[in-house]
């Protein structure tokens, strides 16, 4: 008797495309996504989505991606994650964060250690900037035992609209994901930040730092805000500046926020937006900030066959959909209970799940 044909999971809509592709590749289940902007004036996949599919094709071996004629539906039959030395030019509609967020979920499970060079915009307001990925996302992977050789090098910065930045992402290969047990958010003990400015006066960056400190100084004394000014070749093609902030707790839980320069807004105001977002993020609670909820939850699902626990703030809509998609792909559902039931004001939740015992099958022996 032959193998039963693998079941194709079907989704509709262009939203949550990335997480579905990631889950498909990790679980090995083919996925069909249709009705991609079918009612839009400009139907079908956007250039950055097509570029993402191309990148996934590069990263994997044996992946079959079929895009319909109109571009409103795609069928992805995943292959094995390969890794290796790769270079990808990202279109200017989204920043490299869009691609990195996806690749970070896949890279630890590839056959060879990955060295991915991405060119394009390094920070915009839609996706995580490379600073946050370097300072927050990668440390989150360390919770799961992915640490040696994990690095993001910012070679050049590129602001909108013309980009011109370049980052290099290095990721080791692991065999098993460690089980997470992170229930203690601790207390914020230090705040770090990077304020960068390219092709503008370096003073902008200092002005941002000053404004940020004016708010944060009341909370913790341990604040270091680095001013990071790129010059010449490395500063990309367009002017811009941004402030990204990271708060670290006693149990090394990280919360982050950032703000990007906008035309007609003073650097002080940008810094205030970033600072207040950080405070909002901290007040949301949990051990993981909202931008990284799905990454942490994914790694928990991929953990060994043990119970992993994590305390999170309220889930974002993205996380909610992610939980649903995880159930479709891996059959794993989370147990979600209030973190401290005695305290009615607390919105923090305790997510716990039984890992799937995922083993990096791509990694070869010796």
């Amino acid at each position, binding site marked *: 008797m032959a193998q*039963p044909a*693998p079941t194709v999971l079907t989704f509709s809509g262009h939203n949550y495309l990335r997480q579905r592709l990631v889950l498909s590749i990790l679980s090995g289940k083919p996925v069909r996504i249709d009705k991609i902007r079918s009612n839009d004036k400009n139907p079908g996949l956007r250039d950055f989505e097509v570029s993402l599919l191309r990148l996934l094709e590069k990263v994997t071996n044996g992946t079959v991606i079929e895009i319909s004629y109109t571009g409103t539906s795609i069928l992805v039959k995943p292959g094995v994650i390969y890794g290796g030395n790769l270079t990808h030019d990202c279109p200017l509609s989204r920043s490299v964060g869009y691609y990195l967020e996806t690749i970070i979920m896949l890279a630890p499970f590839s056959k060879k250690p990955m060295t991915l060079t991405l060119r394009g915009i390094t920070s915009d307001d839609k996706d995580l900037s490379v600073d946050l990925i370097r300072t927050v996302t990668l440390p989150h992977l360390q919770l799961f035992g992915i640490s040696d050789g994990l690095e993001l090098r910012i070679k050049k910065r590129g602001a909108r609209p013309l980009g011109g930045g370049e980052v290099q992402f290095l990721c080791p290969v692991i065999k098993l994901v460690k089980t997470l047990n992170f229930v203690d958010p601790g207390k914020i003990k230090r705040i770090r930040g990077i304020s960068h400015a390219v092709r503008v006066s370096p003073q902008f960056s200092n002005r941002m730092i000053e404004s940020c400190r004016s708010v944060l100084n009341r909370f913790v004394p341990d604040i270091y805000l680095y001013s990071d000014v790129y010059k010449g070749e490395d500063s990309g093609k367009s002017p811009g500046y941004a402030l990204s902030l990271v708060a670290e707790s006693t149990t090394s839980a990280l919360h982050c926020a950032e703000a990007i320069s906008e035309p007609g807004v003073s650097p002080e105001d940008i810094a205030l937006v970033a600072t207040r977002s950080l405070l909002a993020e901290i007040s949301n609670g949990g051990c993981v900030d909202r931008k990284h909820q799905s990454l942490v939850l994914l790694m928990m699902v991929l953990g060994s066959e043990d*119970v992993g626990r994590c305390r999170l703030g309220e889930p974002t*809509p993205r996380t909610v959909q992610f939980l649903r998609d995880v159930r479709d792909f891996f059959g*794993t559902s989370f147990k979600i209970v*209030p973190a*401290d039931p005695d305290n009615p004001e607390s919105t923090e939740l305790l997510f*716990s799940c039984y890992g799937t015992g995922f083993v990096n*099958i791509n990694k070869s*022996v010796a």
Partner: protein
Amino acid sequence: MDDNPHKAHRPAKAKTKQTGFNEKAFAPKSGRRADRQGRRNVERDQTRLHVPLVNRTPEDHPPPVIVAVVGPPGVGKTTLVKSLVKRYTKQTLTELKGPITVVSGKRRRLTFMECNNDLSSMIDMGKIADLVLLMVDGSFGFEMEQFEFLNILQSHGFPKVIGVLTHLDLIKKQETLRNTKKTLKKRFWTEIYQGAKLFYLSGILNGRYPDTEIQNLSRFISVIKFRPLVFRNTHPYLLADRFEDLTPREELRQSKGKCDRTVTVYGYLRGTNLRHGMKVHIPGVGDLVVNGVTVLSDPCPLPDADSEKKRKLSERKKLLVHAPMSDVGGVTFDKDAVWVNVSGSFTRTMATDIKGVGERMVMDLQDVDGTLEDAVAASQIKLLGTSEGNILTNDPQGVALGEDREGNSNSDDQGNDWDTNSSSDEDDEGRSSFDESDHNDDEAFEFPGSYGRSTARRSQRSVGDLVSTDQLPQGVEYADSDSDLGDDTGRSGGGTFGGIDDDEGFLNHGKFQMDDDEMEPEDFPQWKNHIAENAALIRPRVARKDWMQMIYQSSLTPSHVVHGELQRHPEESSHTDELFTIRQDGEVDGDDEDDRASASLPKSDLRKWASGEVLDSIRHLFITGSGLAHGDSHGLDEVGDGFEDLEEHAAVPETNPGADSEASIAIQAAKKKELKRKFDEQYDEPETCKPDFYDQKKHEISQQLELNRMEFEGVDDVSRALVVGHTPGSYVRIELANVPCEMVDNFDPTYPVVVGGLLPAEERLGFVQVRIKRHRWFSKTLKTNDPLVLSIGWRRFQTIPIYSLDDHSIRMRMLKYTPEHMHCYATFYGPVALPNTGFCAFNSMSSEVAGFRVSATGVVLDVDRSTKIVKKLKLTGVPYKVFKNTAFVKDMFNSALEVTKFEGANIRTVSGIRGQVKKALSKPDGAFRATFEDKVLMSDIVFLRAWYTIQPRKFYNPVTSLLLSDKSNWTGMRLTGQVRREDGLKTPLRANSTYKRVERPGRRFNTLKIPRKLQATLPFASKPKLMKSQKRQTYTLRRAVVMEPEEKKAVVLLQQMQALRKDQVARRRAKQEERRAVHRTKMEKEEEKKGEKKKEERKEYMRVAGVKSKRESEREEGGARKRRKT
């Protein structure tokens, strides 16, 4: 005499208790020796340690240990199982089929399974057995199958093996017996390990082995410890001890029994948790989809406190044996049926001699002619005393109840058994009276056949009951959420984990505080009248969301889930009859909002952070803030800060005394304990507190296991099954869909049915690279592209490997044959297995093969979707025009295009002159210009060495031995030669392939001419030495010789001496010949003696072979016949 008293006895010296050896006696004499001894001890301790492995089998309630009894036929396997079963249960089994589970002790159960001599069965049993009783005929010795089995074990993870020697009574002489035992033990030890346990069973008493020997064996079995095996610790599996066919009879009738079946298998779950949606593989059948898993009550439970109290002295009651395939025990309970076994073949004529009540009831049920609906229609049952009419069946599906089972089985198919089970629990608690009555009418008994049913009847639960349960939403039900409140009255609050707040809300609202459990199903719940209003009253009080319910069970959009809006009903707009409708901006058509990680908060949200109060409100989240606001929640992490915390917390109860003092005291106690532990850790014996790596790992593992247990402790089994899957140790019923009908038709309980769970990755197919080594005992070499049967993971399949070797780490070079005594790589297309999985390979599974059948063993290295194996390709050409270092070469390529592809490639002539392809020539197609390091000859052959990529053939053929009626003779794809031989076809002979004498014209080489000028300058050594031989005779040859008289004399004397010498030699020879003749006769005699001895040896050998062949023929005649004593 003398009255001075005797000297008092010396009090006896208290004997110093000697424990172990006298330490002084072994004290080292020198420091160096002490040092060496210390080192040795440390090293020996290290060898005892093993890598800490997680054991996923629960320790409190483990599944039965599988004891496989393996050996060739006639060795006494059945007798041993019978003896062991008798030992444990005091019952004598008549026929042994399939697994037999018995309770062997307080914490251990055993499942005995006899493994027949078929290779497939041996493979399957080797993969699941925890303990192997390897039976060896002492009077005969080891046989090929046993060695094959041991090799299979080695490649799939070695379980514990105990050897059992039988038939020792056949050896009469004590001396021989001792020697046999010794040699067999030695051989056994080399196979397993030095000191492996080997039991000797002597003779048979009353059809069993002697009780004392069996008791010893059982003691050994009961104390044996198992180390978790990696593969089994990552896969769930089950050895089916029951097997039923659930396919609707109507479908069978229509398809004449050829349709795919729905079957259920039963057994104890082992390995890891069986998760929801997992696919399974049954070796010998294939990959199957699990329709549903139901946990059944344990048919052979471990004794607990309750059962111990109930235990009576009557032996039958006390000892359980679970062996459904062997027809032991009369009644078995299924999920929705009860099976009664009636011994013997069932005929209607037996009605006269019915013995028990149960049998009579069954017989009566045979006579039922009306359907349930008729019965209900005819009955006068009223639901309640106040009911106006009788119960009417208007369930459309109930009509079909009598003759077909479609309704039931369909609902079985659609619904998920996870759900049906969950609801059946509910049913037990608070079933409404309507269901109850249905249920009671319906409890029917039936007859299973040997495994399935030969009769078409099957007990029917009420259809309505099943349907209602199947319609429950799929997914986790953790909480009695408010929405459940209205319709689900029978549920108690227990067994939920999300519902704490709901319950709270419930309790606060004193009006609704009532005990569900006390309610009789008959009395109409009065409070239900106002349930909607009441629910509305409660709702605002419940502040907290039930996230699990909203995420997993509602169809709300994610943003609605988070922001708490109500669901929009899409029906409202779609019901309009207009041709065009205004499109609503649903979530599907929104812009890219949702695919961005850093969704910036709205400006209004940020503006509130401008005020100082708001800023201060989160001060407690920073280390500078006071811990009082959330002191309880962060209590534990502050412990590390020091002692002041203790005081701080001690102060807390004073501020709010009385309210929840007990709880706070408990918390305080916990905190104190934690503090004490930390203090101890720091100050008391810092060495003991710092465990070494090994202990630390072990501690981590045990902690994690504890956490796993604790996390889902309060949760009811059904919900836990949804999240963590079914735990090993539980007795489950797995329903499998689309099973080939041959499996059911050709079912044989003596062949093990193993249900192995597959990890998601293992469902896929791909190219698998393995490290392989031909087995030393396999007589042939393995050839690339010859089919090979592999056993990897759960699977057994035939595939076509390509062997290769790593060529200087540059390329993977194909090998035509596997190397001798060396590992090589093999790549094949097949189902993916995790790297590091061991495997063994066979060329043929057939039992007819004489030699050793395990052809290779190895381990999986890599999994990929493409391969990079190359083989060498030599292109040859000949020069047709030669210049100085340049030559024009033809006959290598066919076109200029091909040449351009190879421009710059290295070429070489046979004589070793290296060169390069330069450019294509226009004239003869495919000719090119090439340069060489020297002038080539016209007669030279130029060749280009290239590498050609080859892919293994995409051939994957699972071994479907369980589908055959003759299970031991599965044949896969045959070799061409085999096919020709079997069909009597001649091998086609190609003219070019025949060997002919090669006629080569002799080649004439011109002499080397060196110009005289050059010769002159050459050193002598390099100068050609061209001296011609003399043509004319020289003077010395031509001249005549005349001797002088003295010379003549001397010559004569010499001649005489030579003649004498010749004579002497001749005589000496004759003498020697005489001596030799004597020696020859002597040797001949010796030879004769040797020949006789050899003849006797051969005779003995043939006798032994004859015994073996006779036994085999006996086995073929009538399997279980007993051996005669020789």
